[in-house]
């Protein structure tokens, strides 16, 4: 039995372990050129004519692989897709030339108003039809492998006709797109809605996972907010290991967008991801060489339990901070 997990999935390669490219780290990155497998940018921050954002991006592109992650597509919105947005996104794709590009399973625009949020979709046939049709069109238009990310959610709809993992799986299969699998979001939504996160991890199409996101969050007791603040918690590392054992070697990214620490702390988190990934891939290979199935079987777990000591105040950013002049103290241009 052979383990084909190291082959390019949906035509995209394994980039290793990367981190988000964030303003407070610009100077150090460009001066010290740390060993990072790849950087992920928030597309919207660089869909601008020029200035400092584009200066820094071009400097990073000279030395690193960069992929794009978006937060404003709102693919499930009642409004039609914004073609001006897509054209600007495509212009940036031509500059960055990412191996893949992602956004979210969400909606955010109605009647021309953009609420700048990743609002969850009801898991219905109507939502599937809308997202599938648009995802196909977007992938064709952008001419790059497109992936959608499972979001964290804080409400659940009475109209949902299936589980989130069934919804996600059907969309990526029917649209023939990639899955950007956010393991922290699985944990956050499992906590908020009381399901088994391992059931989610086991029941998505692993061969379509083109990238994994890992991040910290803020637990308010009544619910968890996906703040991308602080280190990844141990239960999320466990879910990540399980995901890699199921999916094989997938590009993995550490997101840290609120209360951003020094670069060394983010790199240390990336190093931990690299180690967990290595152990999981070894476990997978070991099973294969023993003639067993590569992936572990599903063992039910209880939903995450509310914490006794909630932390933080719940401020949140949508998938990454803005590029902003006030954050520029550490920049070089």
């Amino acid at each position, binding site marked *: 039995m052979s383990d084909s997990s190291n082959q390019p999935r949906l035509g995209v390669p394994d980039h290793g372990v990367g981190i988000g490219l964030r303003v407070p780290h610009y100077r150090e990155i460009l001066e010290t050129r740390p060993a990072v497998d790849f950087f992920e940018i928030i597309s*919207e921050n660089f*869909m*601008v*004519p*020029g*200035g*400092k*954002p*584009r200066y820094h991006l071009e400097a990073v592109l000279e030395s690193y692989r960069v992929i794009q992650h978006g937060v*404003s597509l709102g693919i499930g*919105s*009642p409004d039609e897709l*914004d073609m001006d*947005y897509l054209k600007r996104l495509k212009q940036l794709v031509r500059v960055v030339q990412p191996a893949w590009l992602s956004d979210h399973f969400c*909606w955010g*625009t*109605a*009647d*021309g*108003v*953009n*609420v*700048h*949020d990743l*609002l969850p979709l*009801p898991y*219905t*046939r*109507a939502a*599937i*039809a*809308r997202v599938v049709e648009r995802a196909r069109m977007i992938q064709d238009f952008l001419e790059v492998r497109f992936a959608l990310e499972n979001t964290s959610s*804080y*409400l*659940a*709809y*009475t*109209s949902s*006709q*299936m589980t989130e993992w069934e919804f996600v799986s*059907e969309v990526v299969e*029917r649209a023939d797109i990639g899955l950007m699998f956010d393991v922290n979001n699985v944990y956050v939504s499992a906590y*908020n*809605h009381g399901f088994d996160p391992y059931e989610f991890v086991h029941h998505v199409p692993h061969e379509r996972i083109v990238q994994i996101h890992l991040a910290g969050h803020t637990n308010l*007791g*009544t*619910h968890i*907010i996906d703040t991308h603040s602080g280190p990844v918690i141990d239960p999320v590392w466990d879910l990540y290991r399980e995901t890699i054992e199921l999916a094989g070697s997938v590009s993995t990214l550490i997101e840290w967008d609120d209360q951003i620490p020094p670069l060394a702390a983010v790199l240390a988190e990336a190093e931990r991801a690299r180690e967990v990934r290595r152990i999981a891939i070894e476990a997978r290979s070991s099973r294969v060489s023993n003639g067993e199935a590569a992936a572990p079987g599903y063992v039910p777990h209880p939903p995450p339990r*509310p914490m006794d000591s909630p932390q933080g*105040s*719940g*401020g*949140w*950013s*949508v998938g990454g901070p*803005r*590029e*902003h*002049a*006030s954050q520029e103290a550490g920049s070089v241009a």
Partner: protein
Amino acid sequence: MTPPTSHEERQELDELQRWMASKLRELRGLPKDEPTTALARRHFTGNDRLSPVEQLEVYRQQFWLRHTSALLEDFPGLSGILGQRDWERLTESYLGAHAPTSFTLRDLGAALPAHVASSDWLPNRELCADMARLEWAYVELFDSELLPSASPEKIAGVPEEAWNGARLALQPNLQFVSSRYPVAELRPRCAERSSMRSEPSDSASRTGT
């Protein structure tokens, strides 16, 4: 694989989303509003920790937190001049009158200078208007296109005969901001005053209860 969807199913989805988007922009907390609470019970499941309307309220609070925080980042000088109470009143009236329509929060404050100029209730309105125009010019400058600049060395290297056809031009992103007050000098101190105040989340929590 799910079966095809009907026109009614798509219409129901649209209506639900439009209703939600309108609720997120409401200034006051949703749990105190009976009709909203009743409709939320119909659309959202709730759980043993949050009722259906409290689940929606999480998103309403984040709408205000996110947008007031973005304005505070872009207009720290204006915020510093006004102080917390008037700044919150201004941002609430602004977001009520100018719903965000751009895909990027970078554009959120585009109409704020004009809104400030027309807000009769603002103390020191002319000073505020000057500061708002300057700070919006900074936002535009930050990511606008720059042409290669002519360094002293490059200029010194231009042969004398080439000067006949040479043309020096200003950067296209250069803006002339005329003001009655020395706002460029005042801004660092005002911004410092702004950053020493409580977190911008105060606005969201105040309107959330």
